[in-house]
């Protein structure tokens, strides 16, 4: 998988605002931790389908 379809970049949301657009998960409706953003962006050997429990739960993929 490439970038997670539930990832957006926003400067406002979750009752917070930032100077720069940051990773935001539309499944959780919250900004994403920087380390987890590497999963969302499928960087290195990370992949949302394999490594994100929120993606898997949303898509109904068994553990």
């Amino acid at each position, binding site marked *: 998988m490439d970038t997670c379809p539930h990832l957006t970049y926003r400067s406002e949301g979750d009752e*917070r605002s930032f100077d*720069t657009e940051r990773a935001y998960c539309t499944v959780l409706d919250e900004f994403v*931790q*920087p*380390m987890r953003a*590497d999963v969302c962006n499928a960087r290195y*050997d990370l992949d949302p389908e394999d490594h994100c429990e929120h993606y898997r739960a949303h898509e109904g993929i068994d553990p």
Partner: protein
Amino acid sequence: MSYADYRDGKPLIVTAALTGGVHGKEANPNLPETPAEIGTAAAACEAAGASVVHLHARQENGERAFATERFQAVTDAVRERTDLIVQHSTGGTGAPLSARRQPLRTDPPPEMASLDMGPLNRYRRVTSENTLDTIDELLSEMRERGIKPELEVFNSGHLTEVHELLSRAELDDPPYATLIFGSGTLTRPTPRNFLAEIEDLPAGAEFNTLGFGPHQLPFAAMGILFGGHVRVGLEDNVYYRRGELAESNAQLVERVVGLAETLGRPVADPAEARELLGLSASPR
């Protein structure tokens, strides 16, 4: 590394872990991410009594960065403002070895760099592997560049790895291990486990004490009393007390320095810390 060291007044090294690679401003808006923010935070921590600064680099949007150029910008910002001992992270959950080498390649190299001593879990489905090959490769490059490793011991199995590392590799004295306590893969944060680990350290080792989250202050207190050193900062704990975000890294340094002073433990300045750690007397 004993209560006798505390009684003898061995100076305390305070490491400030400013940024980290896990959370960012979404967790605490006071966490520094840009080189300028990190440099300013480092200067405030030095003024508050820190002698070592543990550094990570970020992209403009706060996400993790491993590139030498990003670390160069951060380390330059710190060196311009402080005489602190610069310690770069080589941690990198999910990142390949080639990326994790990059923080070692700044000019000049950092005086110290972290070396994670084994695997640990992140979230539900991610593991930071830290294989023996990764450890040995990073250590080899550190030795080539004259960088002292800070051996990060996330649990007692990693302490076994420290002993085995010392049996197969040459490290300058004193070996320096950070004992880490918290949830998940980390050593369970109990005083008994703390005592067990410091009693099991290699002969001659100096230890640093790191408690995550609400364990930061009490484990710092134990580190102070048992002759170790302490690490505090927003990388490891974004709160000052329950429900109250920390205002800055310096606020956390000030508190632990005040605790040391109350307990009568002198706090090392960067020059004294370099001597304790066996580093060159002057900053690079």
